[in-house]
């Protein structure tokens, strides 16, 4: 069965690009527009990997990460932070909150797939 990825980004173009790339590689993709939306969708769907932007309205990626890690279904699921902020501060925060890894924007579809495949491929 195809693996499902929850892709969270407030930018529609990035979301579409991610979704298109991952679907092309045979993944199921659920899109969410911000942390709150993602949390709601995570509660409904079963997801194999979460890929989230950090800076988003309503709920940011770090808060989402923190809340997801408290859900029993999301304790061990890989969560990748997708962000333009390559700063160490953000990385340290992500790490402390239980992120599996990060991917710096801008990235190209090839690199995205490479990372995703490495984690759940």
């Amino acid at each position, binding site marked *: 069965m195809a693996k499902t990825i929850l892709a969270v980004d*407030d*930018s529609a*173009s990035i979301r579409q690009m991610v979704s298109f*790339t991952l679907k092309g590689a045979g993944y199921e993709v659920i899109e969410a527009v911000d942390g709150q939306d993602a949390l709601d969708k995570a509660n409904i769907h079963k997801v194999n990997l979460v890929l989230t932007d950090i800076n988003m309205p309503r709920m940011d990626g770090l808060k989402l990460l923190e*809340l997801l*890690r408290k859900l029993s279904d999301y304790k061990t699921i890989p969560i990748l932070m997708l962000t333009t902020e390559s*700063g160490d501060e953000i990385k340290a925060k992500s790490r402390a909150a239980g992120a599996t890894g*990060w991917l710096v924007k801008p990235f190209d579809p090839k690199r995205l797939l490479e990372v995703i495949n*490495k984690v759940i491929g």
Partner: protein
Amino acid sequence: MSADLEQFYEIFFEESSELLADMEACLLRLDVNSPDLEDLNAIFRAAHSIKGGAGTFGFTDMTETTHMLETLLDKLRKGELEVRIEMIDAFLKAGDVIKEQLAAHRGEGQADPATATAICEELKRLSDDTQVTPKEIKVVSHTETSVVSQKKMNDTDHTSLESVDLLKPSHTYIIEFSDYGMSDTASQNLFANLKQLGVLEVNALKNEKELCSLRLITSNCEEDVWETLAFVVDPAKLTIEEISSKSTSIPIPEDKTVDAIDTDEKSLCDQDVTKISKIVTTPDYGFFPEAPAAPKEMGDHEINENLQLQKISNNNREEQIASSKSSSKTNVASTSGEASSIRVSIEKVDQMINLVGELVITQAMLAQTASQFDPVVFEKLHSGMNQLERNTRDLQESVMSIRMMPISFVFSRYPRVVRDLASKLSKRVELKTVGENTELDKGLIEKIADPLTHLVRNSLDHGIEMPEKRIAAGKPAQGTITLRAFHQGGSIVIEVSDDGAGLNRGKILEKARERGLSVHDGMTDQEVWLLIFEAGFSTAEAITDVSGRGVGMDVVKRNIQSIGGRIDIESKFGVETRISIRLPLTLAILDGLSVAVGDQMFIVPLNYITESLQPNISDVKTVSGRGRVVQVRGEYLPVIALHEIFNLRSNVTAVNEGILVILEAEGHKAALFVDDLIGQHQVVIKSLESNYRRVQGVSGATIMGDGKVALILDAAALVLASQQEIV
């Protein structure tokens, strides 16, 4: 890869335009004295999102500009800097530059790199807030990574900012580590990070036996250097040794290292994937070493952090449980936002509207045919036809509503226009908008924007007086321009009003005589005001570069008329001017009354009709040489005989045998003389101009239920023509 990305360009362009518009709106409502953090965050996010997208899709010029924007905004929202009015100006300018860059990428026009550089420097100056000397800017090269590092330097690390200060005492460290398994980009990133601290010399590049030796001259302490490195390099394989402390100036870094890295970057794509996976981090992606839920080894620092985190999570647990319980509910709410709308190209919508138009015609034809069957015998056919008619109408309405957009799409651009212009003219103006949610056909929205901009600029330039003059006249120093949109009957009215000087009747008449227009003192105010729409008419004493050349108002009128609208002016000298534009609700469909003249059928737009009546012969009078008039409740109205205008043969030539349809347009009334009324229809407008040519007195055509073509009358033009005959 870029070929793959191109398919997302369009959505990125649209998204960025929207973000820019949002950003501008936020900026304009931002109160400099007490900025709303939410607004600052929203502006920051907009810049951030554009930057992210631009970076992904390879629009580096936009990335750079948005990056500078983001840097300054980040400081503002973190409270590191105070918001100043010049910053808002710079933000707005930056927004314009990004818009231009966006347009250039879309293939519309050219972006000027010089203005982009200028605004970047301006933003940089504002965000550095006098702490940065030109020399320091030199340290930053033009590559994307160094832009990022510059940002970090500004954001977080004051000590590192000082480190670049040329007069500070500095340390020299020799850093050695094994870079086994480290990718070229990883080292590049590391070098970039180290360069933020000071001046870096790479003594041995990685190819030479996997040992990397660096020399770093910096004012930072060893810990800072250690921290920078520890994130990337395995601490066990790292040595940092200080060789001396001196207070000499730091040489400008050689470009060689940058060049070497640049060429190395090219081999990045061929990187062996398995090699990367061995190391802890790589610059553009990476995984944290320990399993997320079960950290094994932690330093004191991390333990503290984790304890704190646990405390926080305990506090949040109840809240979290509550939120997961309500999640099914909130999901409904959240999907009602962005997720529930889709983007469709306007061609598809237009095609749909066209098809529905055809369907309406077919339905009308069927209805006409069906009406010939006996309703008793064919009861089912008739009830089916009725249902079809209802459904068609509903379908038509809902399809038309797809094209409808709130007028706020147009109104939202004026705060900026007014702000810029007011400061240019040193006037104080407040812009009020009322009825922004009034919906209008998308086609009209696009076409109304330019004329409306012109009217707003005119109000500001000619209407609103200088503050001193206003105070002298007993008015508040700040003028008000009000934009108002509302429905009235079958049309939308958009008003631009100002509490400025008002129109000067005497001056307009004088000017009109100068221009050789036919005017007389007996003209009504309404007629006098409309003179300002004549070509080449301007009463402004001094020509400014804003308006006053007299080009424009006639163009405004023409533009409005070309979309089936009318323009009216009300003004009180010294008090106010109100210009109202009346537009049809939509361009494609019209409610009309069908009338018969001879064997022809015409459609009269319903919103011009006030009443229809059969006159007494005694009410109809002939004025010598000027045609006939009819008295309706004490008022004499010119009679427009359709069969005479269109040269048709009609059996009904005596006014009392036919029917008079009273039309009202632009404040004038006229009686349209027709043979008979047939019925009320909703008709699909087909352009006569694109299918045939423009005909005086006709605004379009439609296809009736029986397949015949009926002409739609241009009621406003007919009424005006009749007025001129009378005058």
